[in-house]
């Protein structure tokens, strides 16, 4: 199925869970936060949160700014 990840289309397996996506992206252990369709998905729910087709996933980090 297709999702939108940080604004780019991306193919993931049906029923992919957030924890699996994070692992695929080699983000495990890094500081980031995730929202799906403009709703925050806390880290504590990564293992259970299942992605749906056309989900808009945003993964964010801290950057320099004023």
């Amino acid at each position: 199925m297709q999702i939108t990840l940080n604004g780019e289309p991306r193919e993931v397996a049906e029923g992919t869970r957030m924890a699996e996506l994070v692992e695929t992206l080699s983000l495990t252990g890094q500081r980031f936060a995730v929202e799906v369709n403009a709703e925050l998905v806390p880290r504590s729910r990564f293992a259970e949160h299942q992605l749906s087709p056309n989900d808009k996933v945003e993964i964010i980090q801290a950057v320099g700014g004023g």
Partner: protein
Amino acid sequence: MSTENQSHDRLIIAGKEYGSRLLVGTGKYKDMDETARAIGASGAEIVTIAVRRTNLGQNPGEPNILDVLSPERYTILPNTAGCYDAETAVRTCRLARELLDGHNLVKLEVLGDEKTLFPDVMATLKAAEELVKDGFDVMVYTNDDPIVARELEAIGCIAVMPLAAPIGSGLGIRNPLNILTIVENAKVPVLVDAGVGTASDAAEAMELGCDGVLMNTAIAAAKDPVLMASAMRKGIEAGREAFLAGRMPAKRFASASSPIEGLFF
């Protein structure tokens, strides 16, 4: 004020005490090394960061700002820079809180226009209300408008941060009397956020009675950012001490400093 008392002159933000009244941004530096050196020289204890899409392997090995400025050493103040509506500002704050393990302190800014980067005051009020309800400690960027500042305080913002001049303009304090009125009315800390250009601007803000100053470009865009960071630190300290000391009244005509009595000619 004695030196002993000065060490007790602390800035209190959300119940935490700080020795430095200079808050700095982390953008526009040449690299992470310059960022760290300038912020070290500024003496700042609160640093603001932005929240953006993460690096998904486009720039492998790129250091993260939080590796350079660790949340153990600095109070990290995530901002909503780049948000033009209340909804995205609130979303950004929720992401930042998750990113920083439940840390509630945020700098809210909802911009109204790309040319001026002036705040959208209506959207700022709306976002502030929602964030306060959601348990955030909100430091809010706003116009130099005393009425809006009063409203933001009434909503429950923990600090009000009027601009000195447009963000990144370096124009200095355009409306010192409004800043003064905001300071006089407020029961929460008032910090000038944005628009200072050099150390005397920072000192002026402090002389007006502001509790602190937040700046980014004035340091990062100086020819020597590390030296300017040090100058800003001193400007803030000098301005604060002058405010506490209470300046002499300005007079139109001269008043001799040497005694008239005892003149021998």
